[in-house]
């Protein structure tokens, strides 16, 4: 990616950020209609972080998104249809119904979705960064972790490893103020989580995760360092989980004032406003984009709902590579 951003970049970012918001609204609707068999997560408030960070990646970079990062999937090239089919546990999703939501891999797009165990993808991303180094690919591996998940041992082990081996790893802590019901005050006792970078001897940044330009600027620099052989970067992105933990959770434990404060910083609304104010996009373009997205999502829903569930017997196929 080249920085600064071009007009085309802004338009593209606008499309993705709006797409995420609309996609997640549709997921919540499907959830309320009992069309989703398991849990449903959204990344409300995290759109700028997930879209902006993935925007910095090349085709052959490795992406390991977490459960608030549907935006990153889209930016890396995944189709709305496939992600929708994933959420609806259909045979046409990339995981063929074996797992849901963002839990799948697409090797062509180099997207490797998470498993539920928090932190578990950081070592794997570190390993792809190692593979990149051994193969002299210049690919970076980008992954994420929550404020809560950053307590897990895998976080530490991976950063020690990536730092001492100078691996092209970028880890973004999505500090969205809560881990399920638990506020960050009960999870760690440090002003900035990016200060953990000091202990690993790597660059660390705390950024406004609702500002897509800031996200891109800092992630892009991290990519450059990684590609130049300068090792990993730790970025703490400050956001707000503007919904409950998952669709079943009303988040009554979040003080109203806090939620209202953060509504002012809504990354989608603010980005749109800024683009229009600065005349980077027109009102026409907005309406066009919105209707394009609506169409895409409607088609995806139709595609997914019309897709079959996998055949039961197929459960037994493919445990091993033959």
């Amino acid at each position, binding site marked *: 990616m080249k920085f600064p951003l071009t007009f085309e970049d802004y338009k593209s970012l606008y499309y993705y950020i709006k797409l995420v918001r609309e996609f997640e609204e549709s997921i919540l609707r499907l959830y309320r209609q009992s069309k989703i*068999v*398991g849990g449903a997560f959204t990344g409300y408030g995290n759109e700028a972080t997930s879209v902006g960070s993935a925007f910095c990646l090349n085709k052959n970079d490795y992406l390991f998104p977490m459960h608030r990062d549907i935006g990153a999937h889209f930016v890396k090239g995944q189709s709305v249809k496939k992600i929708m089919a994933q959420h609806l*546990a*259909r*045979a046409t999703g990339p*995981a063929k*119904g*074996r*797992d*849901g939501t963002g*839990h799948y891999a697409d090797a062509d797009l180099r997207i490797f979705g998470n*498993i*539920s*165990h*928090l932190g578990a993808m950081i070592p794997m991303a570190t390993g792809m960064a190692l593979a990149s180094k051994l193969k002299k690919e210049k690919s970076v591996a980008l992954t994420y972790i929550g404020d*809560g*998940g950053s*307590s*897990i*041992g895998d976080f530490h082990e991976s950063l020690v490893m990536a730092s001492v081996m100078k691996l092209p790893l970028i880890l973004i802590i999505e500090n969205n103020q809560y*881990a*399920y*019901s*638990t506020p960050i005050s*009960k*999870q*760690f006792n440090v002003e900035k989580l990016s200060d953990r970078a000091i202990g690993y001897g790597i660059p660390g940044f705390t950024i406004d995760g609702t500002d897509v330009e800031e996200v891109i600027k800092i992630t892009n620099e991290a990519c450059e360092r990684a590609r130049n052989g300068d090792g990993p970067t730790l970025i703490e992105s400050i956001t707000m989980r503007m919904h409950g933990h998952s669709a079943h959770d009303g988040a009554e*434990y979040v003080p109203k004032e806090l939620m209202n404060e953060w509504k002012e910083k809504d990354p989608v609304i603010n980005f749109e406003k800024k683009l229009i104010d600065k005349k980077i996009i027109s009102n026409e373009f907005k309406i066009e984009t919105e209707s394009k997205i609506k169409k895409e999502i409607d088609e995806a829903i139709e595609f997914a709902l019309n897709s079959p*569930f*996998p*055949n*039961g*017997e*197929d*459960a*037994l196929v493919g*445990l091993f590579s033959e």
Partner: protein
Amino acid sequence: MPIINYIDAISKGLWEEMERDKNVFIFGQDVGDYGGAFKVTKGFIKHFGAERVIDAIIAESAIIGAATGAAVAGMRPVVEMQFSDFVTNGFSQLVNNTASIHYRWNLSCPIVLRMPTGAGVRGGPFHSRNTEAWFFHQPGLKIVAPATAYDAKGLIKSAIRDDNPVLFLEHKRFYRNIKDEVPDEEYIVEIGKGDIKKIGSDISIITYGGTLHQSIEAAEKIEKENGVSVEVVDLRTLAPLDIDIIISSVKKTGKVLIVHEDNLTGGIGGEISALIIENAFQFLDAPIKRVAAFDIPTPYSPTLEDYFLPNTNKIYSALLNLSKL
């Protein structure tokens, strides 16, 4: 007698033990104000205070290790894994430190690890684990897996009073789906004792936890439809195993079906089969059969998960086959 939910039975048992012994404390993610992901400890923090109902960071190895340390220092921690699956992150602590404290140090380690367990709730590969086989193989751990509200309450109380580490496998599919009679009076269910949940004479089902109710259903169906009398042995405790109750049922019936929700291969059904062979070979009229989940991770999609899991029909078919041998 009042009929209560499985989940409420656990809550009540916990509550009573916390009232009884001030060294008992709850430790786990979101267990405080939120009352835990499944709301087992809802309301506890108001009554017992934040020093006895402690929200933990997301770090299962530290949680299990710290609870072990606190237990050795004289406390009685009751740890909640948010889902049983996440115990893998604290595996080393549990099998290396916790399990062997008494053997190596001759000190008690009264810790209870509550684990919302099992499949059938569309949880996918990482929210559906049955973890018993790993720990069943680890000397030094006790494991209980109640399938009724009565047993759940009686066993959580015994688990808390036990001076050894006890894994308490509570099936998450049962929380609000299984209800039965639970007396208001104080009682406990002894660790290490199985229970005959249905008397029968032709075939013994040996089961526990997630597949108990399906086993009973299948047993009732074959009795009604085919006149085959099936005894259902609910192990309740997996370690130490109640070998006596198994063997005496097998001696009576001569035919055995072992049923568990966990994956077949290397599940505890194998050990039970081996023990029956070692202890009651001459009483067997037919090969011991097993019904269990297939050897794959728990898939997410309903069609796949339903195919993968044991169920009443599969158990019924296996009983029917056995009855003809």
